[in-house]
C-alpha cells in the first residue's frame, strides 16, 4: 500500500503525461526538473539520474524505479530483463470504489511494469546474477500473488542457471486487497529463498526506503548479506502504528537503516554511489571461496 510514500519525486511523474501526447507538444523546457524531498533544491533530471537519484546537495537517496535500479547495478551491457506474464489476479473480488483489477491496470500503465518486481539476468563484476528489484511506484511495492510468483520464478531462474540472487526491496508490505492470499506470499517467497540457499548460491539483499511488513518479515532479511541505503526506513510495523498501539515514545532515528545497523540487524549502510561495488565485492568473495 502507498501509506508510506516518500513523495520525493512527484514533479517528474507529473511531467511525463505532459510530454506523452507526442513530439509536437513537448514542452520547451528540457525534460523536466526534480525537487529534492530533503532540501527542496531543484536539479535537472539528467543530472539527478547521473547522481543515481541521490541529491548532490544533501545526499538524500530518492526512490529508484525498479528498471532504473537494475540498470544501476548491472555491468554495462549485461542486463536482460526477463519478461514474465503473471496474469490477472483478484482472489477476493476486492472493490473499494475502484475494482482491484482496475488499480492493477492503472499501476501497469503508470509504471510500464507487469507487477511490483523487475526480474532480470545480469552480471555484477562478471558474476552472473538474477536481479529482483521492487518498484515502490507499483501499488507501494506491495506483495501480492503476482509479485510472489515473480520472485519465486526469479529464484528458480537463479537455481536453474547457477546465478546469485540480488534483491532490492522496497515495499509497504502485504497487498491488503488480496487478503490472506497476500500473507501466503511470505511463505512462497521464503520457499524460493530456501531453494537458492540450498543450491549454495549467494543471496544479497538491499533494503531501500521504505521497507515494511511482510516483505521485511520474509525474503528481504533472509539473505546472506543485508545492505541498507542511508536513512532508509525499515521495519515490521510502521512507526505510526506503534505509537498508536502502545503510546511508546519512538527513539530518535527509530527504524532507520543506521538504527538497524546499531542493533545488529543489517551488515552495512551503503551509499548508492558505492552500492554496485559493494555488491560486487561480496559476490566475488563468495564465488572465490567455492
Amino acid at each position: 500500500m502507498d501509506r508510506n510514500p516518500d513523495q520525493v519525486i512527484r514533479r517528474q511523474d507529473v511531467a511525463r503525461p505532459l510530454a506523452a501526447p507526442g513530439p509536437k507538444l513537448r514542452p520547451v523546457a528540457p525534460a523536466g526538473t526534480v525537487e529534492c524531498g530533503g532540501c527542496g533544491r531543484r536539479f535537472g533530471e539528467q543530472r539527478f539520474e547521473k547522481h543515481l537519484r541521490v541529491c548532490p546537495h544533501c545526499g538524500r537517496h530518492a526512490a529508484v524505479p525498479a528498471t532504473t535500479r537494475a540498470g544501476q547495478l548491472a555491468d554495462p551491457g549485461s542486463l536482460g530483463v526477463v519478461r514474465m506474464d503473471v496474469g490477472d489476479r483478484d482472489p477476493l473480488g476486492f472493490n473499494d470504489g475502484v475494482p482491484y483489477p482496475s488499480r492493477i491496470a492503472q499501476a501497469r500503465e503508470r509504471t510500464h511494469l507487469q507487477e511490483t518486481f523487475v526480474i532480470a539476468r545480469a552480471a555484477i563484476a562478471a558474476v552472473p546474477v538474477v536481479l529482483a528489484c521492487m518498484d515502490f511506484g507499483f501499488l507501494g511495492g506491495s506483495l501480492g500473488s503476482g509479485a510472489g510468483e515473480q520472485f519465486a520464478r526469479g529464484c528458480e531462474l537463479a537455481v536453474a542457471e547457477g546465478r546469485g540472487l540480488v534483491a532490492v526491496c522496497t515495499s509497504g508490505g502485504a497487498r491488503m486487497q488480496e487478503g490472506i492470499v497476500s500473507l501466503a506470499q511470505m511463505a512462497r517467497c521464503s520457499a524460493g529463498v530456501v531453494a537458492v540457499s540450498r543450491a549454495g548460491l549467494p543471496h544479497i539483499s538491499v533494503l531501500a526506503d521504505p521497507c515494511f511488513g511482510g516483505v521485511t518479515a520474509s525474503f528481504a532479511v533472509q539473505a546472506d548479506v543485508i545492505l541498507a541505503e542511508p536513512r532508509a526506513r525499515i521495519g515490521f510495523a510502521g512507526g505510526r502504528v506503534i505509537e498508536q498501539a502502545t503510546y511508546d515514545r519512538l527513539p530518535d532515528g527509530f527504524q532507520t537503516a543506521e538504527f538497524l545497523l546499531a542493533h545488529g540487524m543489517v551488515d552495512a549502510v551503503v551509499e548508492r554511489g558505492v552500492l554496485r561495488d559493494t555488491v560486487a565485492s561480496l559476490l566475488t568473495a563468495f564465488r572465490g571461496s567455492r
Partner: protein
Amino acid sequence: MSVSTETAERERTAFAAVELARNPGRPRALQVISEAFTEWTEMRGDRLFGDDRAVVGGPALLGNRWVMVIGQEKGTDAISRAVHNFGMPHPEGYRKAQRLMRTAEKFAMPVVCLVDTPAAHAGVAAEERGQAWAIAETLMTMLQLRVPVVSTVLSEGGSGGALALAVADRVLALENAVYTVAPPETCAAILYRDAGQRARAAAALRPGVDTAYEIGLVDELIPEPTPGAHAHPTVTVAALRGAIVRHLDELCTVDVDTLVQRRAARYRAAGG
C-alpha cells in the same frame, strides 16, 4: 432490501464472525496442551534475550507419540492476558519457537503448533530486537524442518506473526477461527485510512478460515459445536486432538525427504 442496507448487513455479519473468533471463552493453547496432551514439560527462553510468554512450548505425549508442542497463548483473564501479552509475540517468542523446533528435529519428534495471535507485537522493543528478522527466520526454519509439522489456527491467525507458526505439512483450523493478513482494524486503517471501518474491511477481505481453506492454505476445518467452541471448549479440543493424531499418523509414514519436498512445493504454489 436496498443496496446500502444489504451492504450494511453484510458488513455486520462479517464483523460478527470476527467477534465470534475473538470470544474469550474459546480454547487457548494452554488449555489444548493440558487437555489433549500429557506429560508436557515446558521449555522456556530463547537463549538470546529473554522468555516470551506469548509463546509456550515443550515436549509432550500425544497418545503414545512424543511431539514438540508450540503454541501462542492469549491468556484467559486480565492478569494472564497481560502476562501472555494477548498472544502477541515479541522476537524472543519466535526465536524460542525456532529453538524448540531444532530440538524436535534432533529427536525426530513431530512438531505441533497452535496458532492463536491477533498479530505479532508492534512496539519499539520488538522492532529494536528484529521482529521482522525473527519471523523471517522462523519461516525458513519451518520450511526446512525434517520432521512432520501440523499447525492449527485456534481463534485468530493474524499477520506474519501467525504465518510464522503455520508453515506446515498440514494446517488445520477451528471452523469459526479467522486467518488474516492483518486484523480488520489494521486493514481498514491501511485501505480506508480509518480503523473504524473494520466491519467494511472484514466484509471485503473475508477473514474466515473458509477463505484460507478455499485457497489451500488450510487443509481441514475442525467443526465446532453450536454456537461455537466457547460454549463447549472441551468437546472442541477433543475433536481437534482426534484430527491432529490422524494427520500425524499419516505424516509419520512419509519419508522425510519427500515430506520436506512436498512442503516446499506446497508453499511455492501458495496463493495460485
